[in-house]
């Protein structure tokens, strides 16, 4: 059965994509899930994968071409299969094929369409056509079924069947129940379903122990995270959560604060005076001597524990945000939204600009998990491989130019976030402690605050907490 390769909607907002690079040549064998091309969307370079087994018979788009979503880019089919009909009918046929790819339309319609296509192809040729079956047997007419039997082709209904929750079927012989989940073959299309499955017990255990479920690989059916997975994750070290974080977790994802009159007036007058985001800046210098010592000790424990100053700042910011929900906020014009989950973005410089990948639930991550995740996000940001979900949804941002030798700077707030922290480089400086001059490692940070949402004292208290955490960094690793 021939299968069309089309420009897929790889982000929620994508209408058009540019084919950056073909990764398979005409004549290459491909399997379902193989990456066959790279496609640049509005924001990132994404992978286009094969939706069927077979041979990439035809490449219809050239590298560099931009095409609307749904455009036919190529054809995957059996090595000897006649695909003239598909290529000829390229433009009109694209629409049903797209529906099949997205799994969004009624499953039957594209299936019938695909069968019809093949029949058409077979009709055009005098000799019987062999075909690699990539279709559910159930929807194929009898002669197609015979063909499957003869070829022993892989039956892959998943392409046309939306991924189903994989409930383990009960012991045999339940009542005649058409369409029960157990009746469908195991979903092979799980890759398109990003939702992580977990048992209620696993969720409860993870929440009690402050472990981020997302960091755990599930061993149950369909990748379900089950109790034993959380327990073994615990063995590798649980993350401490502050009491405030526990409280926030119990309150839902956010809390909307209606604007009081005084708040409205402050917002209006300050915006008039100082552009749409009336920003003020708070600068503080932290003593990071102990943090520097801790970094050395962590590095001695092994590469997996290594943490940069920035990782330490990210972790401390996440904890401080848990203590100061008023800073972990969005300004939404008619209200302030205080977030109960803490998603800290980190600004990463890329070739032609800047992108802010997000550490979701950063307060629930170990320092070394933050390090690993931050490294990975930064690398993929530079390779332009981030998916849209990975760089949206932050509740606060940290920007660090310390590595460029910048002592101190001010960062521009990324609306609707209410604040951003600009982190400078670490420098040895003479300071007076208890009347004695000492050389200490120091780091300057400047917090930009949206005055509509955050007042000076609020920001200052946040920096106070941040100072306590960074100057006593053990609290970040226990």
């Amino acid at each position, binding site marked *: 059965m021939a299968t069309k390769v089309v420009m897929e909607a790889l982000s929620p907002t994508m209408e058009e994509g540019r084919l950056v690079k073909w990764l398979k040549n005409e004549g290459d064998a491909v399997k379902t899930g193989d990456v066959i091309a790279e496609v640049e969307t509005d924001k990132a370079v994404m992978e286009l994968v094969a939706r069927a087994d077979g041979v990439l018979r035809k490449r219809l788009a050239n590298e560099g071409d931009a095409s609307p979503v749904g455009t036919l880019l190529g054809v995957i089919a059996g090595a000897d299969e006649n695909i003239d009909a598909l290529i000829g009918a390229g433009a009109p046929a694209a629409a049903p094929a797209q529906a099949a790819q997205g799994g969004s339309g009624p499953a039957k319609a594209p299936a019938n369409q695909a069968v019809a296509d093949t029949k058409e192809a077979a009709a055009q040729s005098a000799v019987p056509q062999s075909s690699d079956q990539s279709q559910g047997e159930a929807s194929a007419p009898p002669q197609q079924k015979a063909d499957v039997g003869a070829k022993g082709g892989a039956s892959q209904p998943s392409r046309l069947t939306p991924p189903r929750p994989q409930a*383990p079927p009960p012991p045999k012989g339940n009542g005649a129940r058409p369409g029960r989940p157990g009746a469908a073959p195991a979903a092979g299309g799980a890759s398109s379903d990003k939702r992580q499955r977990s048992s209620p017990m696993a969720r409860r255990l993870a929440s009690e122990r402050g472990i981020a479920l997302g960091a755990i690989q599930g061993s*149950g059916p369909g990748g379900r995270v089950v109790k034993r997975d959380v327990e073994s994750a615990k063995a590798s070290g649980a993350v401490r959560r502050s009491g405030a974080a526990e409280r926030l977790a119990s309150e839902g994802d956010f809390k909307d604060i209606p604007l009081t009159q005084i708040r409205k007036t402050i917002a209006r007058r300050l915006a008039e005076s100082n552009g749409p985001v009336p920003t003020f800046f708070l600068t503080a210098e932290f003593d990071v001597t102990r943090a520097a010592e801790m970094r050395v000790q962590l590095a001695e424990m092994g590469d997996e524990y290594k943490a940069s100053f920035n990782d330490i700042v990210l972790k401390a910011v996440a904890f401080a945000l848990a203590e100061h929900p008023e800073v972990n906020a969005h300004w939404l014009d008619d209200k302030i939204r205080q977030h109960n989950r803490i998603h800290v973005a980190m600004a990463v410089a890329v070739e032609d600009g800047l992108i802010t990948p997000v550490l979701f639930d950063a307060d629930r991550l170990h320092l070394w998990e933050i390090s690993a995740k931050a490294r990975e996000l930064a690398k993929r940001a530079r390779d332009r491989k981030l998916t849209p979900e990975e760089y949206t949804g932050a509740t606060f941002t940290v920007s660090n130019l310390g590595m460029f030798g910048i002592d101190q700077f001010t960062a521009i707030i990324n609306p609707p976030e209410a604040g951003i922290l600009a982190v400078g480089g670490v420098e040895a400086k003479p300071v007076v402690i208890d009347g004695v001059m000492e050389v200490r490692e120091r780091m300057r940070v400047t917090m930009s605050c949206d005055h509509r949402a955050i007042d000076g004292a609020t920001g200052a208290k946040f920096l106070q907490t941040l100072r306590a955490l960074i100057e006593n960094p053990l609290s970040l690793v226990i």
Partner: protein
Amino acid sequence: MAVVTYREALTQALREELQRDDRVFLMGEEVAQYNGAYKVSKGLLDEFGPMRIVDTPITELGFAGVGVGAAMVGLRPIVEFMTWNFALLALDQVVNAAAKMLYMSGGQYNMPMVFRGPNGSALQLSAQHSQAWESWLAHIPGLKVCTPGTPADAKGLLKAAIRDDNPVVFLEGEMLYNTKGEVPEGEHVVPIGVAELKHEGDHCSIITHGKMVLVAMKVADELAKEGITLDVVDLRTVRPIDVEAIAQSVQKTNRAVVLEEGWEICGMGSQVVDFIQRECFDDLDAPVLRVHQEDVPMPYAKNLERAAKPDAAKTIAAVKKVLYLD
């Protein structure tokens, strides 16, 4: 403690309660002269005479109705059905008369009576005589339904049933009558509505009742050899159900298999699973699975009958599935 059969345990309960309260009497087909189709009433006619051990014609609806009337005027009848398959004819008296009398008389008439007899399948009795009715009967407000799986529970629950002022449906098992177990002598009353943890383990709970208790115990022993330990919760009474005992076990093990003799759709297990999802949602590590008779009339052919019944192998497979071991 004496080891006696399930049958003898029932006889003990009948005898002790007939001695204890002269309002108690037993009636049914063949209960007197023939000592009972399954010999549960053996010797009782000799001891208590024909006024208290009464043979009836083959008229289930008729003598069930006589029982209801007797209960209304202050006696405490025990109505024996030769099997619950025959009792279908009498269900109007059980469901419409006995179960509703207290309610519809505005509290004027208690219904202190017991309907008892063997329930479920035996061996090769085919489709009409191999049925487990507990979910039908447990469905009815106004009834209590006991399903003892061991001799001790058979005695203790029957004594409790006879002493209860409400109509109690008492489901025995033809294949259980010859099973043996320790039974306390004399006063041994098992409260209605209280489950018992028959086997203790950590990995999975089997919730069951009646004849399937023995299957569950066998499964627990088998799986213990593989290092899998099970809680076996014997409900003993399926109305009312001891929800607390179920919840306590599942909250400990995080997984459950519900095992019953009857069919799947609207079976007792459906109700148990409902309680579990309500009481133990955050404790579940896997979907609860059920083991039950296949959804067909019981076949007569031996091989098909075996295939249709719930058994240890099917239960072991379900336990392994909820443990993510298969």
